[in-house]
């Protein structure tokens, strides 16, 4: 029982973080807060991938001086680290595009609250 909890509690916490983000998208009416909730979801997914790359007793995927090369279990899986490194930078850049769009929405409709924007659009 305890080993099962220890093996899976990371996934449950990450699921809770992802659901916090989904709730933020559904429940808030401010578009800026929706963008922040999207970023929370992106962080949850990055943590999920990094969690899959861990091994018991492993270290960072950089060859230690003097270490034997062939020991696979001594190093963490380098592939999730690589993919998430690029995902973080791309996430920042796409958040910039989202903020630019919000800037333009605010100029056009005078508000970032979703009901106000919808009301202005229907007129």
């Amino acid at each position, binding site marked *: 029982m305890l080993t099962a909890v220890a093996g899976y509690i990371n996934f449950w916490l990450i699921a809770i973080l992802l659901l916090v983000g989904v709730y933020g998208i559904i429940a808030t009416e401010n578009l800026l807060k929706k963008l922040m909730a999207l970023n929370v979801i992106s962080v949850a997914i990055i943590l999920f991938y990094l969690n899959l790359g861990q091994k018991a007793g492993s270290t960072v995927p950089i060859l230690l001086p003097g270490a034997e090369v062939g020991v696979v279990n001594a190093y963490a899986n*380098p592939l999730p680290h690589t993919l998430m490194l690029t995902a973080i930078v791309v996430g920042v850049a796409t958040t910039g595009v989202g903020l630019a769009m919000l800037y333009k929405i605010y100029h056009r409709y005078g508000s970032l609250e979703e009901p106000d924007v919808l009301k202005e659009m229907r007129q």
Partner: protein
Amino acid sequence: MKKVALILLLLLAGLFIYTSFDLPPTNDLNSPPAAHVSPRYIEMAHEETGAVNMVTAVLADYRGYDTLGETTVIFTAGISCLLILEARRKQKRNKRGGR
């Protein structure tokens, strides 16, 4: 609306916990992500690419095409930001000057 969302999310949380038992447990040495290509990266990265840091070796050499795509995405994001915001400024200037 918020109550419906909460109930739906609770159902989703139950589904996540139920399906999480099909994933490999954390720190598992023989999990599928650690078994397929990553042993090859760890064993051969220094020999084949000359990089001690395996993350750099995978990022720039084994998966260089992937990184080219990511760089293009970042560059495109910057350009689209420029187009979205600068177009507005130019329109305003034209309106002020033209009429």
